[in-house]
């Protein structure tokens, strides 16, 4: 039972990180970032390169390795986010039909990106060294491994920090303002371009964090971004694009559903269950669980 909850929580926190990135990007700059899968893999490969370099220098574990892995993954994804932004956001931002164009541009980037990883890193999966060690804490009948615990704790900390920062700081207020009314934001001195790039970097960093931690179990491969992207999309849809509480709840539901299905039915049924859940939610709430923002934006 505990193992079930733990694995649900791990999945929920990982997917939640990706989904919040997607949701956040959509809400503030109106661009649906379908290159999030590419950004995800970029973080994984950055961490892999870091691990390679460190191993060559003779360091295979310890805090330098762990923290370095996390930071390099986040940095890699943030840079990839900025890259996506400079291609798909900056040139298109004040053009007609930005939403559709942005969607297509990010799709094209993800198409190209996958092939580029294939060219440079080959089709094999790359493992990462463990970040949190290999130990395990026994609780009652079940137990929780360090990596699971670490993933949950770090994801929660990061999310809380980002949300707190959004709530209280001036930059956060500016981002929220831009979500509501881009013209009004421009009038109060918020630069859409600067803030947009900032948002892309932050959501990239969150995705990179998820990437490094998921790579502990699933490794890094050119197509490893597809699954998180799909699930992230499903969660941000079900949660209502742009709503942080909605996304968190949806992440919890989806994580639980995936863990339950994988345990009691079959791993292969997971996509069906997830798809069913999102269809159900959207049938009853066409704007997702917390999606009031769409109304507000228009």
């Amino acid at each position, binding site marked *: 039972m505990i193992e079930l909850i733990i694995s649900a929580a791990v999945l929920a926190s990982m997917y939640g990180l990706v989904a919040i990135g997607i949701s956040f990007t959509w809400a503030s700059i109106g661009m*649906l970032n379908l290159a999030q899968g590419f950004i995800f893999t970029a973080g994984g490969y950055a961490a892999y390169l870091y691990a390679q370099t460190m191993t060559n220098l003779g360091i295979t574990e310890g805090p330098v390795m762990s923290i370095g892995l996390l930071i390099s993954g986040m940095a890699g994804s943030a840079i990839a986010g900025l890259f996506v932004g400079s291609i798909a956001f900056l040139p298109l931002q004040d053009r007609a039909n930005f939403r559709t164009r942005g969607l297509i541009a990010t799709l*094209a*980037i993800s*198409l190209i990106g996958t092939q580029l990883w294939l*060219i440079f890193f080959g089709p094999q999966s790359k493992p990462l060294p463990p970040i949190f060690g290999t130990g395990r804490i026994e609780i009652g009948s079940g137990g929780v491994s360090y990596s699971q615990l670490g993933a949950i704790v770090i994801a929660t900390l990061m999310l809380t920090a980002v949300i707190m920062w959004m709530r209280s700081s001036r930059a956060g207020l500016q981002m929220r303002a831009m979500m509501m009314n881009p013209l009004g934001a421009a009038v109060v001195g918020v630069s859409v371009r600067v803030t947009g790039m900032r948002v892309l970097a932050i959501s990239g960093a969150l995705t990179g964090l998820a990437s490094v931690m998921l790579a502990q179990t699933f490794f890094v491969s050119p197509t490893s971004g597809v699954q998180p992207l799909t699930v992230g999309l499903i969660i941000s849809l079900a949660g209502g694009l742009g709503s942080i509480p909605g996304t968190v709840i949806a992440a919890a539901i989806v994580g639980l559903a995936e863990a339950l299905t994988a345990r009691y039915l079959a791993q292969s049924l997971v996509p069906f269950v997830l798809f069913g859940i*999102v269809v159900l939610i959207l049938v009853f709430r*066409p704007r997702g669980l917390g999606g009031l923002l*769409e109304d507000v934006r228009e």
Partner: protein
Amino acid sequence: MSKTSSSPQSKHLIGRRAWRPAWPARPDRVLRRRRYFGSKRSVLKLSGQFNPKTLKREVVLTDKKPLFWLFGLFLLVAIPTAVGSERFLSLFGIICIYAAINVMWTLIMGTAGLQSFATLATVGVGSYGAAYLSITFGLPWPLMLLVGLVLGIAMGFLISLPARRLDGLYYALLTLGLSEFCRNFVTQNEALGGKFNGALFGAGRIVPSDMLTTRLGQTLAFLTTFVALLVALGVFRWINGGRIGLLLKAASTSKEDESFASAIGIDWQRARMIVFMVASGVLGALGAFYSTYIGGTSLQIFSLDLLLLMLAMIVIGGLGRAEGAVIGTVIVVGITQWFTDWGPWRIVLAGALALLSVLYTRNGLFGLKEQMREIRTRRQALHRAAQTTKYAEYLPQQAPDIHDKSLIAGRTFERELREKLRGWITPEIIEEHRRSPLGQHSDHLERILNYFRKAPIPDKYAVYTEVPFQSYRVVALSGLPGVPPRIVDDKTYGSLDEAYHAVFMRRINDLKAS
């Protein structure tokens, strides 16, 4: 004014001024027109115009598209048939099938305005359904096509259900997941070839498989794909150019358009659904056709990469246009199927092309012409704005569009005249007019008055006698029959001369302001 009641408000009341019908002798109307047999659509769009220089009527071909289409389709069928190598024929066969699918997708995304990514899912369902039935029950190919059509319509119905409730983007993402869902379904299902990684073999073919080794058979197979493309284009033209297409064009670009459409009674949601179902039916049939073409089907049809590539095709050609879908397909399929030895780089190239067209063109290749024209007009406009006075009465941006240059000349003359007259307005002239509004005047004043006299009637000032010899007021004529002049201010004048002078002063003010 209901239709049934014999209401007295019918349009043909006695005493109502008859509205004027347009006479056929207008130069911009073309009298003779060839039409497609059995329809009201004309073959070539001709238009008449009046040439102000030669004073002659000219008939010009306004729309050269049908000619380009004819030429392009001829090339598409002639090149592979003439070359006749197997690789060429199969390449063009694939191009035709993909182009047909893309044309239908364009119908959904462009005409219906539904951002649906479930195209390949529909094709796949048609393909798998037809192939499965053909393998299991030995269905002949015409029945396979029928099955595909039915499955496609059913699929279209199912997918269109959430479209009524969901917002554009949510709908797009939901349908994006659908082909992934279908792929999973097929891999889980043993009957559908889950064991062979989703591949089905041995479905019925249009061209018997023993003929396919000969050049004739290969050419025939290619020709069937070409016919499929023609059918798709025909459906596209039938819907997009017809009533439904027009209604949807009035409704589908924005929320405001939707409000307008419902205000004039257009049931755009129903129209959208009809288009969606028709397109889905054709897509299903195309799927079944694909099965008959390759004699089976495979999982590749549901892959996300293929969907992205097809999106790239549409984007490169230009969203919402049939010609864009076809040309985009030729380019992308040409790259990815012909240069197979480039490995992943050809996908990168296709993606880069799509990215470039999103970044730098307004609407793909076929939007380029319009875009170039706009850039040119803007440059011309800026150039003309520099030489200010010549086009002064028109916005410099308008000037290139005005066909009759004599209008520009006339307006320019008017402006120069006004400038000259404005220079003549002095206190002495005004004083002269105040002393004697009527009678002999100095030359300058007379010319100014002449200019005022020939002013157009709407908003022209006039004197209104309230009480003869006692009170007069200044009014402005409306210029419309039935609309009384409006009183300009609340001043009354004791004598006619004073009123004349007041009118003169108003006109002087207007002249100064213009």
